[in-house]
């Protein structure tokens, strides 16, 4: 079910992004750490953004006899 290459869930990436932004804002870190954090933040942003951009919602109907799904037209 994982849709991103890094195996990070959207939830995980979002919370990373959130905490990185917070840490950056706090500003109690060195420039090197800031740059490092920013790079990480951009990475997580891309993960989230990718997931949202490549949304391809599927609605499928289960068939008990065949134990399979078919596209549902609702």
């Amino acid at each position, binding site marked *: 079910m994982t849709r991103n290459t890094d195996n990070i869930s959207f*939830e995980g990436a979002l919370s990373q992004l959130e905490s990185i932004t917070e840490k950056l804002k706090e500003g109690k870190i060195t420039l090197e750490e800031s740059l490092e954090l920013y790079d990480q933040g951009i990475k997580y942003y891309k993960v989230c953004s990718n997931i949202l951009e490549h949304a391809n919602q599927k609605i499928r*109907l289960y068939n008990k006899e065949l134990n399979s799904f078919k596209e549902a037209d609702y």
Partner: protein
Amino acid sequence: MKICEGKSSIIIHYSLLIINSKRSGVYMKMKALNVTQVNNYIKRILQSDPVLTNISVKGEVSNIKYHESGHVYFSLKDHKSKMSCFISYENSKNMKYILENGMEITISGYIFVYEKNGSFSLNVIDMVVEGQGNLHIAFEKLKEKLEKEGLFDVSKKKKLPLFPKTIAVITSATGAAIKDILMTIKRKNNYVDVLIFPCLVQGDYASSEISKTMEIINNLYPNTDIIIMGRGGGSMEELWPFNEEAVARSIDASKIPVISAVGHETDFSISDFVADVRAATPTAAAEIAVPDSYELRRKIDKFKRDSDITMNQVIEERQHRLQKHNFRVMTTLLDQKIQNYQLYCEQREKEIRQGIIEKMNNHKNEIEKYLSVLDHLNPENILKRGYAAVVTEDDEFVKSIDDVGTGESIRIALTDGSLYSKVTGKELRGSGVKIVSKRKEDRK
């Protein structure tokens, strides 16, 4: 045959046999049967009767006992009569209702004879409970039981994932619920996949289908993030499958978080209590289950923007600090310092110089003061004012009339030269007596 009332035992009057025997006129000649044989015979008769093998009986539940073994014993009665009833453990597992004394029910099953006691009971295969009052009793009974077992414990509630990728929906494929759920999900979210598991949501087979589907999802599709189970509004009878123990157990056993959404806001079902989250309606369930992916887009974009701004600020602040401390600035600062010192030195020098000048001026003034005194004392100046100095022929100053004698030559020194003259007379100041013609002798 007459079946007498009383403690689930029956007393058989052998009327049937007697009638038959009387007809044949061999009543007294009948060979006596033993009890076992009779009970055996009765069993065969009763259990092969087409009516009694598939019978439906209506009455009020009394003397209900839930045995440890899982079997259920009770009596069904009306105002005149009562009969023993039995639900085996196997059947009781699938019963849709938990019975309680006083409930009016309709049970269907078959008559079973216990040869040992010569008693019979109605073995229950299925039952129908109708009427709000009766259903409420069953509802409360099951609720109480499951609550006691801890199925409603808050500590057991699983958290819904913030960003589900797959949601399974257990409901009727044609009902209003699935339409509401899909409409809400599509409006809020363009990412989550929806797997619809069509199920009966009312009637006798609904609960077993729902609980089996719950198992299928858990076993075959364990990556499902959330299960929504429910249906639209209906009568209490129609919603009943969601008040059945089988459904409650399957929700409890689910490893995937379950949202229960049964009927309208005012409808509470047992499944609502067991589920991890209760939604008032199917639409509400969809609202709860999926995040707004469009809102998330805005949110992460804001994070990025904030980070960009912060990063720029961090860099600018560093640049600013760096600029404040570069070589040029340091040189300027040094120059400034030197200039300041120079200025200070010049100031001091000026002060010293002024001090000296002042001192010299003071001396000069003093000297000039003396000069003026000297000047004042210069006889030449006296002469300039019109006074004259009188000297003798020997150039001695004449300070008194006694210094020269009458007739003696004197020189009167003026500022621009001298006059030579002779003393012709003398007069003592203030006497008014002029001494004339005296010679040298009047000189003292």
